[in-house]
């Protein structure tokens, strides 16, 4: 019998945002990455073409992190000691973006200086041609000091500077505006809070084509359902035409999943948890696929095997089924 598939007719679309700038565009990246542009819920090719695939960023640090899971030290080996080597290794593992987080202190506990943050950023920019996201350590004053210096030193690169939050966004937005960068705006799993912060950033005269939003997520088992539904609601609002939600979404399943005990710890856990390494990778990849299904445009991962699996998954999801 003939079947008419109900199609949603959406008036709105997600903005497109381009990360990175090539030499011709005033930067040094060998290529740029564009995300967004969706006119339907994720991967529903029968309803609308999905112009850009979701992309994978790999999180690296300016120095060896103190408290990561031993599995991640094992996976990256010596590269983890040096941000440039780490960025290269991440690119080889399949990263399409590099997300550099500047640590709060150096390995001796001394607060990271702006000079050191700039040096790390430049080293990564030289080591890879991929567009770069630079996040501060997450303490307002330090973030502002470090990110302003990084933004000025990398003027024109169209970095993504992060993380803007409701209590601290003005300085980061101002320096991004002055130096031709992008920002990412993070709010805690709530549609209205996300919208509110986007409005505040917009009110500063910052172009919305240079904003990513991070609705935050919980890892699998640690509140992922809240992130999942907040993202579905944000994306539906965007498609319904709510301009201040029409931003590509970035989420950090790597950070969230590897914080969970299931991924981080291998000893003193129930036998029913099974093999540690595979469990940890499942934790990261299952968190990621769930967020991709709810509208993530950029996923920031940590383990190279997760990168491989997520790449294969995205490639499949972007294929238009013959029978659809």
């Amino acid at each position, binding site marked *: *019998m*003939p*079947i008419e*598939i*109900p199609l949603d007719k959406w008036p709105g679309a997600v903005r497109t945002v381009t990360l990175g700038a090539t030499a011709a565009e005033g930067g040094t990246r060998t290529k740029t990455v564009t995300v967004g542009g969706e006119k339907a819920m994720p*991967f*529903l*090719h*029968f309803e609308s073409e999905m112009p850009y695939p979701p992309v994978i960023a790999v999180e690296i640090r300016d120095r060896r992190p103190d*408290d990561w899971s031993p599995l991640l030290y094992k996976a990256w080996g010596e590269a983890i000691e040096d941000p440039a080597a780490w960025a290269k290794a991440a690119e080889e593992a399949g990263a399409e973006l590099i997300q550099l987080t500047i640590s709060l202190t150096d390995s001796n506990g001394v607060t990271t200086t702006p000079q050191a943050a700039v040096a790390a950023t430049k080293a990564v920019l030289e080591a890879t041609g991929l567009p770069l996201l630079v996040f501060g350590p*997450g303490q307002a004053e330090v973030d502002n000091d470090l990110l302003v210096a990084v933004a000025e030193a990398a003027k024109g690169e169209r970095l993504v500077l992060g993380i803007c939050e409701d209590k601290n966004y003005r300085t980061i937005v101002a320096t991004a505006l002055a130096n031709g960068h992008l920002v990412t705006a993070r709010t805690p799993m709530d549609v209205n809070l996300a919208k509110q912060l986007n409005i505040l950033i917009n009110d500063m005269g910052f172009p919305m084509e240079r904003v990513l939003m991070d609705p935050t997520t*919980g890892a*699998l*088992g*640690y*509140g*992922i*359902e*809240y992130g*999942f*539904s907040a993202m*579905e*609601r944000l994306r*539906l609002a965007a498609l319904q035409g709510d301009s201040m939600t029409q931003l590509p979404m970035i989420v950090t399943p790597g950070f969230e999943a590897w*914080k*969970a*005990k*299931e991924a*981080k710890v291998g000893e003193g856990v*129930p*036998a*029913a*948890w*099974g*093999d*540690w390494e*595979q*469990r940890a*990778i*499942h*934790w990261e*990849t*299952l968190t990621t*696929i*769930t967020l991709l*299904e*709810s509208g993530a445009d950029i996923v920031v991962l940590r383990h190279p*095997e997760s990168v491989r*699996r*997520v790449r*294969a*998954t995205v490639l*499949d*999801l*972007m*294929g*238009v*089924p013959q*029978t*659809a």
Partner: protein
Amino acid sequence: MALTGIQIYKLLPQTNCKECGFPTCLAFAMKLAAKQVELSACPYVSEESKAQLAESAAPPIRLISLKSDGFEVKAGNEIVLYRHEKTFYNKPGVFIRVLDSDPVEVMQGKVAAANSFKVNYVGIDLTVDGFAVASVSGDPGVFANAVSVVRKASQRPLILMSRSSEIMAAGLQSIDGETPLIYGADVDNWEAMADLAKGHNAALAVIGGDLEGLADLTEKVKAKGVEDLVLDPGGRTFSPGLTYGTQIRRLSVKKNFRPLGYPVIAFPGDIGDAGLEAMLAAQAIAKYAGFIVLDHFTPESIYPLLVLRQNIYTDPQKPIQVQPGVYEINNPKPEDPVLVTTNFSITYFSVANEVEGSGLPAWLVVADAEGMSVLTAWAAGKFDSERIAKSVKGFNVAEKVTKKRLVIPGHVAVLSGELEEELPDWEIRVGPREAVDLPAFMKQAL
């Protein structure tokens, strides 16, 4: 398709007799449309109207229940596309597939391990739901024996897989009296399979090449008197699986399209790679499968999948609460600090996860704040000094520790004075506002 209040009103006696408890028939009709009352409250509604209303009230996706001795797995009865619109109701059944061509010991081992698997997540024991036995040998006797082997190793519900009615009949003999799922009926064998399903009171999976063919087939099978159906639309990788799952869910929920108003069965194992199998199963959980058949059983992949299923099928309108009590994090000793927070699951997880991740030992007192977060509960008077003191006393925290030092969330710093009065033996410390700052606070200030 659900009727509107006005449409329902037309089917009522329109006498405004008030015996239903509402002032007018229209008011009653509106309540019926909102599913807030039962039609049986009206003593005068005609049989004809009853039938019409019952048809309109039937769920857009039929509830399918597989049963064995002591176990039941239900799928279907879903009414929304997005969980935030209401909730997802029946968690997809997770089944592990065994092949009749495997040596008996291999089947026994796989089934025994999966059958006894149990993992605790926030106080809930999670398990797999059943097993699928697939005929690869092509031999009825071998298949019947395999079904018996699996049935001996586990009492959980079964899915029997063969396209041959002769083989299927042999398998069904081994589990007479149960309600398994027969997989399945296709364009060639559907009459014989429908007869078997009818004869054994089994549910029947219908296998279609595309949605139109699938809908034609379910109508034919239904006309033969088999109504408990499960759909296999095909599509064994991510994109086709998502497309079919979404299209079928939309047709049933939005259009009440009865020929496809049944749960969908997914076979993520067909993708081959065990890592991608788990991800494809995760997609099937979020995007509309009713039954999921896995080929790999490993605790490290089943545990996250069962947790994901639990998460996605949590009712968003009723935030899950954790049991109030004292939680031990990183094996605390009597001298380690005591932290207090509320029993809203996200609040608990944020705090527990940060402390756990830091590696620092602590006693976490979870007070009964009726499932609200710290600030909300404080504003609502559900997380005040009295309640906190009651938790500390009620859970006998003083007996577990030598150092009576209680850390309260920074957001309720205002409570510290009152708490000192309520708990005179205790030193009250004000912690950070956000859980993420707890490890630093614990390292520096405690």
